[in-house]
């Protein structure tokens, strides 16, 4: 057989078999992968909206809102906010009160900050018993104009204590929130009008 024909034939066959196998494998695994993602989001919503019995999903302005209810009263709204961190995108699940004025909770969905430094935004093993102290301190703070302080306890409604050695990551979280909460607020309010 002519070499060119053989080359084309062999590559075509290998690629076709590979494609077929992978599409079968994708169908088999994607269900589980999607289910895990959903579950992760569900869990994050529960964490940032304490005191909630059920959530309703609404979409507006590019945001997906998880509206928390208890006894048919709105208890809070959760949504995903993303932005640049030190190395890669930081993805946060943000929980706010129904009028978007206060944080009800915050969790980190994904981040690729420097291990041992920036990763403390999600989990700080050096603070035993309160490993999530950084994101926990957002609960109850006022939205819109967060600032950070270094090497001292935060005081006031919109101050956040930055992580020592990871000011950039700490500031990234604050910047994401300052930027996205107002946009999310106007997107959410446009639904009700």
């Amino acid at each position, binding site marked *: 057989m002519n070499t060119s024909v053989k080359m084309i034939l*062999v590559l075509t066959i*290998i690629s076709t078999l590979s494609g077929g196998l992978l599409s079968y*494998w994708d169908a*088999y695994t994607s269900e589980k992968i999607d289910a895990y993602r959903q579950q992760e989001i569900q869990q994050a919503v529960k964490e940032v909206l304490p005191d909630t019995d059920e959530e309703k999903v609404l979409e507006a302005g590019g945001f997906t809102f998880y509206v928390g209810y208890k006894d048919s009263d709105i208890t809070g709204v959760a949504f995903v906010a993303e932005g640049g961190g030190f190395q890669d995108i930081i993805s946060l699940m943000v929980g706010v009160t129904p009028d978007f004025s206060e944080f009800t909770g915050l969790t980190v969905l*994904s981040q*690729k900050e420097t*291990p041992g430094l920036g990763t403390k935004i999600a989990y700080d093993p050096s603070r035993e018993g309160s490993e999530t102290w950084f994101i926990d301190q957002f609960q109850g703070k006022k939205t819109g104009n967060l600032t950070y302080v270094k090497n001292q306890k935060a005081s006031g409604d919109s101050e956040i204590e930055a992580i020592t050695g990871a000011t950039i990551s700490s500031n990234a979280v604050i910047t994401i929130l300052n930027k996205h909460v107002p946009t999310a607020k106007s997107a959410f309010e446009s639904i009700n009008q």
Partner: protein
Amino acid sequence: MAKKVSLLEDFTKGIWKENPILIALLGLCPTLAVTISVENGLAMGLAASFVLICSSTLISLLRNLIPKQVRIASFIVIIATFVTIADRYLAAFYPEISKNLGPFIPLIIVNCMILGRQEAFASKNGVGRSILDALGMGLGFTLVLLILSAIRELLGSGTILGYQIMWDSFSPWMVMILPPGAFLTLGLMIGASNWINDRRAR
């Protein structure tokens, strides 16, 4: 008898004499990047070994059918197929590990160790020997990752597989879980293996 010795040699050379990391210095990118914890190191070692063994088997079987001119392209397609299978498997069944390893599982596709074994061994030898070769190389790769990640996790976090090993007042060496720690540890390991080889040769 002579054949038996060479079969054993096919398997064992990957563990020490031609170790992909310590001697051939191949596949260093994942080696340095993911070994911050034993769990990560083990997962990376097993994933790469799986890809290596499957690819070597298949490529050795197809070695007479693939024209020389398109062999690299064929190898890459075959390797990429197995890498994608491993990547999706981890994402579906071990999502936490998959999250930790991030892009380094897909990057096994361009791991020189795997392509190197196809080019140097599987495309020239029979299936049996190719599988032995892949098993040995995979084991050698995994062992080095395990040792490297154990040293880094122990000194950098004070734990092994998440269990506290070091005493309470031990303060973790931050540098060990940062990239410089990977270079330092790997450098010392390569130095040690050269030293041992040198001593033996004398």
